[in-house]
């Protein structure tokens, strides 16, 4: 490690010297604290936060998502969520996040044909093979379960109306591969978590990162299904990531929301 520290000091000193900085007798240059004293980051965003009413946010998000070949639906009751997810996920194994929103909807047991299915008034049909993500799976098994599943179900932390983007965090129950390896991805997004623009999303992320709630180890902004134009500029869907992306927008009654800060 000493070697790498030497390389670091050398490089930083070389850069500083080229920029006309005199060598600091202390060795390494230090950034004046706070860092933002040098720089006003908010000037990279619109001066005023964009405001959009709920209906505009929702319609715009759905329009953008569909323009990209994604599927978006609105669900006004838990039963509608379960029905839609069951229809899309039918005919293959399911891997899903262990997170409060999915748990509250009882989605795992509903799909597997458990008691929640009866609650939601679902017809009795053979249940799907459902795995709920978590540390107990172990690294190797988690990977092969995600790779062997047809459908991955997650929630989304935010949605962006401007672009049809969903924002996928990572956590103990929220695996990266759930939204990545299965050919079908279903994301549940509370309508109250829709933001007008990418700029507003980053306004929120930056505020959170500065006020103590650190960024997750992985945060993915996903906008429609995976695509490539690498073969003669011919657009093709689903090269590496999911081929099908479904976003179920949840009304406040379904998400239990209405009190979002």
């Amino acid at each position, binding site marked *: 490690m000493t070697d790498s520290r030497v390389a670091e000091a050398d490089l930083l000193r070389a850069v500083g010297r080229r920029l006309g900085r005199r060598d600091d007798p202390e060795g390494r240059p230090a950034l004046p604290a706070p860092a933002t004293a040098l720089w006003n980051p908010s000037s990279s965003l619109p001066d005023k936060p964009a405001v959009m009413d709920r209906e505009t946010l929702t319609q715009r998000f759905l329009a953008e998502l569909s323009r990209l070949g994604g599927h978006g639906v609105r669900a006004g009751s838990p039963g509608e969520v379960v029905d839609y997810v069951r229809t899309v996920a039918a005919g293959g194994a399911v891997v899903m996040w262990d997170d409060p929103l999915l748990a509250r909807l009882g989605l795992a047991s509903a799909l597997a044909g458990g008691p929640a299915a009866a609650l939601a008034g679902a017809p009795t049909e053979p249940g799907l093979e459902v795995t709920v993500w978590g540390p107990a799976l172990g690294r190797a098994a988690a990977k092969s379960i995600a790779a062997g599943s047809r459908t991955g179900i997650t929630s989304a932390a935010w949605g962006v109306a401007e672009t049809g983007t969903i924002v996928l965090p990572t956590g103990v129950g929220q695996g990266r591969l759930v939204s990545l390896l299965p050919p079908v991805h279903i994301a549940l997004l509370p309508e109250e978590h829709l933001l007008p623009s990418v700029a507003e999303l980053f306004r929120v992320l930056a505020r959170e990162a500065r006020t103590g709630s650190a960024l997750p180890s992985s945060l993915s902004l996903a906008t429609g299904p995976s695509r490539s134009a690498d073969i003669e500029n011919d657009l093709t869907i689903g*090269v590496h990531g999911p081929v099908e992306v479904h976003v179920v927008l949840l009304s406040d009654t379904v998400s239990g929301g209405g009190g979002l800060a």
Partner: protein
Amino acid sequence: MTTPKRGPQTATAPRTAATPRPEAASKAGSRASFRRRALAALGDAQLRRAVRISVDEAGAARNQAVAQLVALAREGLVRGDFAAMRHRARDIKAETIGHLDLYLAQAAGAIRQRGGTVHFAAGAAEVGAIVRDIALTRGVTLAVKGKSMATEEVGLNAALESAGVQVVETDLGEYIIQLAGEKPSHIVAPAIHKSREEIANLLGRATGRSLPTDTPTLAGVARRVLREKFLQAGMGISGANFVVAETGTVCLVTNEGNGRLTTSAPSVHVAVVGIEKLVPSLEDLALFLSLLARSSTGQKISVYTHLITGPRGPGEADGPDELHVIFLDGGRSSILGTEFQDVLHCIRCGACLDQCPVYRQLGGHAYGGVYSGPIGAVLTPLLGGFAENADLPAEACSLCGACGEVCPSAIPLPDLILAHRRRMVREGRDHSGLGLPLRLAAAAWTRPWVYRASARLGRAVLRIARGTGFPGGAAAPATPAGPVSPAGPLAAWLNGRDLPPPASKTFHELWRERQQQGRDGQ
């Protein structure tokens, strides 16, 4: 640049007519010159058709996406129109590059605080040694790699393969190029010069099957092959589109999802990052994401924007155990403090390639380096040696200025190309022979009577030339094959151009007539 003659002969023109004279080829030393590579590209009709279609589509998509910013700004969704956005982009980069040592130290600190390991590498040898060491001490035999220009620069694949580590490119275009044993020909679309027949052959050879040429089948085959690699690989290697200094976040932008897979499935993630890739904060990143997607593909935002802050957290069942960020100098620090410093503002969007009339005719391989197009003409001589690459700014540019207009970081590319040319002349590397004629022209044409006399003379010469078998003249053979090229100094110039018929009247004559008519009409 030399625009090829229009007409049916273009597609089938034998290369004999395009063979450079030996002394022209030898000027750049033993290395093949830009001129030689350009002539090879001009003779490749398939390549030129593919490149033309691709850049025209990308350029049109970019123009449309950039125009939309006006309406979005009115809604308050983006900072401003393109001019305002790129003005701010330039400010962000000027701030970062102008205090690069401070921001590098800040980024390194933030990455370490989140459990990542930071390395600093002076050049290719150091990057190779660091990555080889990480791979070998962890028993890695297979690595998957996301698209990264920085690793192309340092030839990382070769360094790893010589140590027994197989490296598989996972971007579809890069994978095709790797199978072909070639280099990317475009920053964003590395395989634009390949036809679907060639791609079907390459993928067919890799899988031992004979494949149809439709896009869904080919993409599906690549997906299956690469999926296995993702799951088996012990290491994922990526570049970075941006690194946020404040949070230590590595940002990867892809459309296929290979960037996410590369950095999520294997247990070690190594990111090789040019030191100029920093931005101060997440807000600054937001602005660049919007500009990058619009400028490179005409999208509002790329399909996947992946923000990586440290290795996986405790209890997370996937994601890398280790995150290594290697900051690569690779000649960048020597650009700091020079008149070329602004080239470090480049975000590798490829917009300048898509708008460049020279690139549109040649594709990327003619530039002979990792970076092609206008950015390559400026950057390659700085990173790869001026003496070996001075012919790029000298010859691969018509100074039309389109690149400077579309650059989302407002890099004054035409000015930097001119700066290279000034340096060439200063260092006595200008062998074009244009110095004396241009000085004479300047001396003569600043005197009106000399200008008028030379215009009359020029028209007389043109009339005579067009009546002869002179190349470009009306009596020249339709196919410029065989020894029709005169060995004169104008041959190289005339071979690529139509000689227009002289106007029946000069501008001055027309002007006099109009004045006369005006007086008569009163």
